[in-house]
């Protein structure tokens, strides 16, 4: 009954979304102010109602998962009674249909949030909600017509097939909602861009860039956290400590992130300096198009297999239609409006605008590189050029030299004035930062030794870190006598410095973890000792342990030296009964300076294969991502407080 109600409510949500998308358009055509206000009123109420309805439908599906209602096809295919409650709930979005419902829920949530909290009540706000309404229509239709989560099975199966064991993980339960909140959040950028392009000669009074910024910041923070969480999950779950594979699935998420990062910065210029507006509008459309194509092209499988469309032509074509439709409408409106858009205001190359433009050029190049690397094999194959692979070595080869000038220029941006900047007043401090970076790099070269590229990257990352510190010092200078009362300091003083320092910390983590990783592989008998990164370990043997829905063989290793001397590591190999599959659970000692990462492998005769890695400073990678998200949050907080 609840399931049927959920299905019905979803149909109702589609009709409400249609009202949100169409009714205000008619009302806005009327010239009287009364109708114009009515347009906004209708759009706002429809957006709120749509959200409530989708939330109810989502609740109905969650209920079916929690109750293990195997009469539902998705529950049967993705759940099992012998599964912890949290993974029954996470199972709601652990499948195609449910995750699309989550996607629709987030689309509706952004629309409702804007309807409820958008501060300026004008025609622009109505147009944003109309675009959001059309997005709701498209995705609800996709859900109902091709991916109905409420489809029943007859006869009702006795038991479910379970959720893939490696997805039964807290990080992966949170990963999709965060990622979707990021992807979908960029739909707000798209909606704002379209609302700006359909206004009266791009009404300056509407100040779309200013109104867009908190929403793209929100999306960016979520996407940053979502990608970082996915990377951390891959690190500990996949059994050897890889954190990024340049896999098409990952590339699909990093493209909107790179474009979205560029958008954050160009929207700042558009807001503060009334320039780069045409580029920002285009970038807003592109960022959302990348969010869409990333999610959907991977989902339909086109990136890994060209035949995926044939497997499910209906879904694939629907997806393609949504992607092409929204992107084309965006580009056409942009093309039509471009001649009327105000020309950009003047600035010097050496100015904050100039440096932010350079940031955009680098990030755009990075985005194009990922895009090209991902689709080049498909295009070449389609043109009859043969099958090639584009993997991690290609992306590393392009990104390493690209990162160096990017990181070198980056700290200068926030230190320069708008319009026309001067470096002379900062000269002594910049020299100090450069000298500090050079000194630490020299120390690294003397103790570790590294290739020229690694040394250059290392130095650039340190320069970026010290530059961010310099930036924060400059921003806090007016408050230097009141630093103790840190809660009273302006949040804006921390936003850019923290985010930029986060990037530096991440770069340092990536360099250390990839360059100085150590690894041992041994076939061990109990009592055997091994040595890695100056630490002695002893293998004590195996025992069987049982979890809630799995059985495992667990090895024990003991630290014989170092700060953890006497402590144990318990790597496991788990066997999941219901899903008939196996996972590797690494045992990781997480120190800030490095992780010891132990994995128990297969039997080798009467011995047992053990693999132990030392990943130096690997935590810096995700710490850096957290700092970036924190910087974004400070920026968001400043913005919300100011406009309150």
């Amino acid at each position, binding site marked *: 009954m609840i399931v049927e109600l959920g299905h019905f409510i979803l149909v109702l949500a589609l009709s409400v979304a249609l009202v949100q998308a169409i009714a205000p358009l008619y009302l806005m055509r009327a010239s009287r102010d009364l109708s114009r206000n009515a347009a906004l009123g209708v759009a706002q109420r429809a957006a709120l109602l749509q959200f409530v309805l989708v939330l109810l439908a989502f609740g109905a599906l969650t209920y079916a998962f929690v109750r293990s209602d195997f009469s539902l096809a998705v529950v049967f295919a*993705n759940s099992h009674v012998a599964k912890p409650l949290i993974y029954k709930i996470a199972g709601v*979005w*652990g*499948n*195609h249909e449910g*995750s699309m419902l*989550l996607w629709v829920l987030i689309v509706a949530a952004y629309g409702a949030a804007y309807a409820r909290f958008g501060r300026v009540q004008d025609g622009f706000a109505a147009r944003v909600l109309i675009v959001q309404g059309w997005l709701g229509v498209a995705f609800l239709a996709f859900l109902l017509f091709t991916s109905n989560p409420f489809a029943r099975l007859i006869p009702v199966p006795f038991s479910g097939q379970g*959720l*893939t064991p*490696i*997805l039964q993980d807290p990080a992966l339960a949170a990963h*999709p909602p965060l990622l979707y909140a990021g992807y979908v959040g960029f739909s707000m950028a798209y909606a704002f861009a379209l609302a700006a392009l359909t206004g009266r000669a791009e009404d300056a009074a509407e100040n779309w860039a200013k109104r867009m910024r908190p929403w793209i910041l929100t999306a960016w923070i979520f996407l940053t956290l979502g990608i970082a969480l996915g990377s951390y999950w*891959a690190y500990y*779950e*996949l*059994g*050897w400590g*890889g954190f990024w*594979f340049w*896999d098409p*699935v*990952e590339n699909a998420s990093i493209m909107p992130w790179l474009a979205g990062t560029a958008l954050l910065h160009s929207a700042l210029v558009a807001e503060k300096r009334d320039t780069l507006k045409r580029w920002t509008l285009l970038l807003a459309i592109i960022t959302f198009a990348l969010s869409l194509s990333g999610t959907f092209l*991977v*989902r339909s*499988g086109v990136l*890994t297999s060209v035949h995926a469309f044939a497997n499910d032509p209906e879904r694939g074509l629907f997806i393609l239609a949504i992607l092409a439709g929204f992107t084309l409408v965006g580009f056409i409106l942009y093309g039509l409006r471009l001649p009327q858009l105000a020309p*950009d*205001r*003047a*600035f*010097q190359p050496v100015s904050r*605008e*100039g440096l932010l*433009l*350079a940031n*955009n*050029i*680098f990030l*755009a*190049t990075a985005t*194009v590189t990922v895009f*090209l690397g991902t689709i*080049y094999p498909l295009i070449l194959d389609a043109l009859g050029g*043969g*099958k*090639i*692979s*584009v*993997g*991690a*070595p*290609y992306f590393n*080869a392009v990104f390493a030299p*690209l990162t160096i000038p990017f990181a070198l220029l980056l700290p200068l941006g926030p230190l320069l004035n708008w319009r026309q900047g001067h470096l002379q007043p900062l000269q002594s401090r910049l020299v100090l930062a450069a000298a500090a970076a050079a000194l630490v790099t020299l120390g690294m070269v003397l103790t570790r030794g590294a290739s020229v590229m690694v040394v250059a990257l290392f130095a650039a990352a340190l320069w970026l870190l010290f530059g961010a510190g310099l930036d924060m010092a400059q921003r806090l200078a007016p408050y230097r006598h009141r630093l103790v009362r840190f809660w009273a300091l302006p949040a804006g003083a921390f936003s850019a410095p923290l985010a930029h320092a986060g990037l530096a910390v991440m770069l340092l983590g990536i360099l250390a973890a990839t360059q100085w990783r150590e690894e041992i*592989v041994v076939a061990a008998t109990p009592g055997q000792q091994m040595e890695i990164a100056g630490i002695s370990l002893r293998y004590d043997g195996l025992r069987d342990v049982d979890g809630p829905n799995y059985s495992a063989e667990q090895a024990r290793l003991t630290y014989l030296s170092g700060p953890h001397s006497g402590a144990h590591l318990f790597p496991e190999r788990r066997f999941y009964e219901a899903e008939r599959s196996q996972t*590797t659970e690494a045992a990781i000692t997480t120190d800030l300076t490095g992780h010891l990462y132990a*994995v128990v*492998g297969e039997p080798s005769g009467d011995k047992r*294969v053990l*693999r132990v890695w030392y990943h130096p400073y690997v935590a810096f990678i995700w710490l850096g991502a957290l700092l970036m998200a924190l910087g974004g949050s400070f920026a968001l907080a400043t913005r919300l407080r100011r406009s309150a």
Partner: protein
Amino acid sequence: MARLAILFFLLVSPTHALDPDEALADAALEARARALSQELRCMVCQNQSIDDSDAPLAKDLRVFVRARLQAGDSDDAIRAAVVERYGEFALFRPRIAPHTYALWATPLLILLLGGYLGWRMAGKSTPQNTSTDS
């Protein structure tokens, strides 16, 4: 999303491949073998290098790479031998050749084009730079 993750799981399954008996005694040669292995694609498992894969074919290739290294072959000769057997699909780092010029050159071209357009834009819209007569 989970489908993405499952797909991802299939691509990068939770195993690490190198067996204890495979490694070469010569550390320098073994380091070269590892580096080379990470650039060679396992042909039966999507998107894994032979260094990461536990497929029998990947193991064969790892042994092959090490045998050729011990015989004194250069990295390029080994890559060429692998390509001869399995085609260019086996290389994660595409060769620089006419059919991949666009792949390797585009990032640089985009950067140069962006730099040129950006510089022109910043310069053009600045009053001082437009008065070139002086």
